């Protein structure tokens, strides 16, 4: 664990441990490239990470504190003849963070505090415990709030271990396209207490949710913290198509040995105010009680027929898929299922796109289960780490909390010759990969970044059917009002090892129309019980988080006025699958190594034979050599 100097030369230097970066790292290392893989954060997987509950609270705290610009320093003494310096600085791609706690804190103040210390993953970050203050009426604190243009965080009273009032309401500042400012009046606040000290817990009045169900004992915030390590809460919300490029890559490379998966057990949809199960296999269709016999026959005939491309389909090219579905004389039930849950497109999606998407869905059915999807145990944040482990096993060097300060450009060739790391060391390299957060200022200003709206809920029961704690559900939600985004929701039970027993973890994701809170809270209020909901009897939200994340799908690999051997890796995109990231990783790999195989299978550890002591034995045992010999 000791700090040591890094070697001064690598083939590939990669900054950021997101999915694209990690796949390229594994691919390069696997074929013998010397890889240095860094992340300025203290955790793996960047915006693809997953956190324990307490880890997530720390992450939230960090996002709110993360405003200080990195100091610029003069590196000219490290420059050589004909070199130019390109400074790197990162910018967070997270916006509009809002936290709400809808469960009671309970009296276990002391215990909660002590537990949070024990279960915090990262030792150097103080545990953040959060007091609930969901009481809408409790607005006194808002008086002295000022709008802070840099972020939404109002750092009043911020001193170590003191109360840290965070005002997260000012949503319009970061997205100029938000014309709708009404939500500003919806004053909600989350109070974040930096709480290693017991006295930090005191000032909070215990807010008791007024409409809590008397029949069921709610899990308290203290319990969530105490069982915090049972949670693995992803920043992204995706599923793995069982024949998608990520699954194929995991299998092909043997990286799959590091992970296990659960089948997504059912597809649900939200329609006319009810959650319904979507029949997608033959067995489902025939077992379905909501479809008539005629509908069952029609659906089966349609699904069978659309597997092949036909002439009558191409006549609809460019016209909406919904029109095509209508003309197939499919009733409204079936149109809804086919459009929103199977094709997972919108009303104006062209027919050819809708059909391609339907075929993809059908192609993925039945490989592992009766839905097309898989979900990794312990969350999606495992996946980049699996690739990082593979990279490390093949010699890649890993440093977290370690970044790059600048690139050294060889002006004659327009190539990056070397980098300077955050410790001021010059490291030569042939190729550099950067996560997209490092190229913010270089982005084309004409195309403002797109955002995803995300919400993460911890609820106390499943949206549909019994609470068996085994179901994993994909929920498709058409726009609830005109102009509202279509939302993809994933409900995870504790069997996925992402939440504690007795709770469900619900991820919502859509393309931003406005802030995450504006986009998603109306839906959450309707589908779940929160203090704002009218009807009870739905799953209660214990805790929820809203945020916007920059949509990675718009990011180009090259350009950005960067040297020709510097590639930009995009962050998470809004699609359900991982096609964008895997396609991009393969593209970058082949730009670096056009001749090499992308992620050939790694040998099975049980098949490796050690060749015993062929080297002449003299001198003491050597430390592992840094020179990689494959």
């Amino acid at each position, binding site marked *: 664990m000791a700090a040591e100097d890094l070697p001064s030369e690598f083939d590939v230097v990669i900054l950021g441990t997101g999915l694209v970066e990690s796949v390229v790292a594994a691919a390069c290392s696997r074929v013998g490239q010397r890889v240095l893989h860094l992340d300025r954060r203290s955790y793996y997987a960047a915006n693809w990470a997953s956190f324990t509950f307490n880890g997530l609270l720390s992450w939230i705290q960090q996002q709110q504190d993360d405003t200080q610009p990195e100091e610029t320093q003069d590196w000219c003494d490290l420059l050589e003849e004909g070199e130019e310096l390109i400074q790197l600085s990162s910018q967070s791609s997270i916006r509009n963070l809002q936290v709400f706690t809808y469960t009671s804190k309970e009296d276990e103040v002391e215990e909660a505090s002590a537990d949070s210390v024990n279960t915090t993953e990262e030792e150097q970050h103080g545990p953040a415990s959060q007091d609930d203050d969901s009481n809408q009426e409790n607005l006194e604190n808002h008086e002295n709030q000022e709008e802070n243009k840099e972020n939404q965080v109002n750092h009043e009273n911020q001193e170590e271990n003191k109360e840290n009032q965070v005002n997260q309401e000012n949503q319009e500042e970061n997205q100029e396209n938000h014309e709708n400012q009404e939500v500003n009046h919806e004053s909600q606040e989350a109070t974040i207490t930096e709480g290693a000290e017991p006295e930090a817990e005191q000032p909070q009045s215990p807010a008791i949710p007024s409409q809590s169900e008397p029949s069921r004992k709610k899990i308290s915030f203290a319990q969530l913290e105490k069982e915090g390590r049972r949670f693995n809460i992803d920043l992204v919300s995706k599923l793995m198509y069982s024949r998608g490029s990520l699954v194929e890559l995991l299998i092909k490379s043997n990286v799959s040995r590091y992970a296990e998966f659960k089948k997504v057990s059912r597809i649900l949809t939200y329609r006319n105010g009810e959650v319904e199960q979507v029949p997608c296999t033959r067995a489902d269709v025939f077992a379905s009680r909501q479809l008539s016999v005629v509908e069952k026959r029609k659906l089966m005939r349609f699904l069978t027929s659309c*597997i092949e491309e036909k002439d009558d389909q191409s006549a609809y090219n460019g016209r909406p898929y919904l029109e095509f579905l209508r003309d197939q004389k499919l009733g409204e039930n079936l149109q809804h299922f086919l459009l929103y849950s199977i094709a997972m497109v919108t009303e104006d999606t062209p027919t050819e796109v809708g059909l391609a998407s339907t075929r993809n869905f059908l192609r993925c059915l*039945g490989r592992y289960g009766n839905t097309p999807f898989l979900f990794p145990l312990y969350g999606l944040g*495992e996946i980049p780490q699996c690739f990082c*482990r593979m990279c490390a096993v093949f010699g890649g*060097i890993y440093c977290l909390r370690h970044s790059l300060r600048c690139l050294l450009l060889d002006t004659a060739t327009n190539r990056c010759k070397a980098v300077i790391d955050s410790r001021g060391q010059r490291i030569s390299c042939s190729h550099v990969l950067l996560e997209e957060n490092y190229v913010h200022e270089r982005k084309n200003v004409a195309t403002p970044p797109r955002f995803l709206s995300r919400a993460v809920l911890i609820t106390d029961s499943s949206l549909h059917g019994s609470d068996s704690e085994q179901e994993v559900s994909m929920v498709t939600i058409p726009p609830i009002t005109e102009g509202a985004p279509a939302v993809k929701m994933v409900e995870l039970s504790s*069997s996925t090892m992402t939440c504690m027993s007795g709770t469900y973890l619900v991820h919502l994701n859509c393309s931003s129309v406005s802030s995450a809170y504006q986009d998603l809270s109306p839906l959450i209020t309707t589908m779940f019980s929160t203090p704002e909901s009218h009807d009870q009897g739905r799953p209660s939200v214990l805790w929820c988080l809203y945020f916007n994340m920059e949509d990675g799908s718009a990011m180009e690999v090259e350009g950005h006025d960067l040297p020709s051997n510097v590639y930009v890796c995009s962050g998470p995109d809004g699609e359900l699958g991982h096609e964008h990231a895997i396609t991009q990783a393969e593209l970058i790999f082949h730009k670096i190594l056009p001749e090499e195989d992308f992620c050939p299978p790694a040998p099975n550890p049980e098949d490796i034979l050690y060749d015993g*002591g062929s080297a002449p034995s003299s001198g003491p045992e050597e430390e*592992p050599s840094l020179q990689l010999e494959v």
Partner: protein
Amino acid sequence: MAGGSVSECKEYLFKVLVIGELGVGKTSIIKRYVHQLFSQHYRATIGVDFALKVINWDNKTLVRLQLWDIAGQERFGNMTRVYYKEAVGAFVVFDVTRTSTFEAVSKWKHDLDSKVKLANGDPIPSVLLANKCDQMKDSSNNKTLMDKFCKDTGFLGWFETSAKDNINVDEAARFLVENILSNDQGLPHEESNGDRIKLDQQTVAAESKSGCC
């Protein structure tokens, strides 16, 4: 990670971590234990995740022990969660000839306990290995101190080992496995892992044809 029982014979698969500072002999211990080899020279093991040792524990118990080395390249202390995940035991190794490696032991132990726990929330059983004891100058020293250190830091116990002279390596492993087994028997088996899916070539070959239509 406990396996199911096949008729009378119980089969277990245990993931055990081997951690400690650079050059303390982690890989040597694994090679000695699993392959009965010792080499004065070794190179950073490239492409090897773990070594497997199959132990016929008694006539009713088969233990498959996966020993996970930290890839030499994760030596900056930044192991992925993949490494720690579902481990049920650990060896923390130091080099008796270098005190700095002993000083790092509590850091490694702390790191270990913060990253992985048993299903019931207890720390995973861990054993401290004082390796390269063949090179130790005076062997009479501080047994009581070591016992106290283990008690304070939460180790089950400690062994003086030498991968080179094959001292105590088997004994230490047996000691750890005994503890893992007794943990396993004390605990109710976790919910059935039957519907967990592994993605591998066999799955692909045997994949079901029960498509939708």
